């Protein structure tokens, strides 16, 4: 049951990414091109996604998940070294080529060689992260 829900959630997520244009790296580069031909689509995507999620957070108060038991504890929202360094690295990579991890998976089927190379490199980067994290703060990764 959990897996079935997860599959449907993944499908919705993927459909949303495709419809919103997030799987098209030109949209992302258009968003980052503030001083050029700026494309604000991404702000609409973010806005559209935050609304249902904000409602969901309200609904979690004083309840447990329908089939999942307790809600995953939120990590400390404190802005630390890792958030800044990680976001800067991610931002550089994102600006260079476009996709974040979700769209990278969602576009694997039609992204051709570019998509495959990107996804493989991304997984490589993820495999390196625990080492980098130990170096940065010595605490175990929470995810």
């Amino acid at each position, binding site marked *: 049951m959990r897996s079935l829900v997860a*599959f449907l959630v993944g499908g*919705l997520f993927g459909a949303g990414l495709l*419809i919103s244009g997030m799987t098209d790296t030109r949209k992302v580069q258009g968003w980052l091109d503030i001083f050029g031909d700026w494309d604000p689509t991404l702000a609409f*995507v973010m806005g559209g996604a935050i*609304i249902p999620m904000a409602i969901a957070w309200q609904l979690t108060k004083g309840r447990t998940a329908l089939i999942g038991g307790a809600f995953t504890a939120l990590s400390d929202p404190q802005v630390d070294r890792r958030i800044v360094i990680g976001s800067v*690295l991610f931002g550089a990579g994102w600006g260079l080529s476009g996709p974040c991890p979700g769209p990278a998976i969602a576009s694997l089927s039609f992204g051709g060689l570019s998509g495959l*190379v990107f996804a493989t490199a991304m997984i490589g980067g*993820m495999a*390196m*992260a625990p080492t980098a994290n130990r170096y940065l703060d010595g605490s175990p990764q929470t995810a």
Partner: protein
Amino acid sequence: MPIDWINGLIGGGLIGLAAAIYLLVNGRIMGASGIVGGLVDGSGHHAWKERGALLLGLFFVPAIIALAQGGASTFATSNLAILIIAGLLVGLGTRIANGCTSGHGVCGISRLSLRGIVATVF
């Protein structure tokens, strides 16, 4: 209002809905970097079935839509060096920051990291 913006809003709504369902029903945070990364480095192996199922949906549904509409535009660059460097940075960065900026954004944190990105890219 350009059609792109409307599509963005609709697509964003679907993404948010998916994240909301995952939170309310399964009690988990939907983040592609966390789900893939947890499988890669082993920190998420205890929930591999759920994670795998989500990734299957994430892969197959866009594949079917793209097939139905005769393809979808995607990577602007086919420069392999750029793709490899960018992929490494995205993979490493999202796992150091415990999530991509978009994930942080959807889950409602992190204005600072968005600023970090803009600062980096320019």
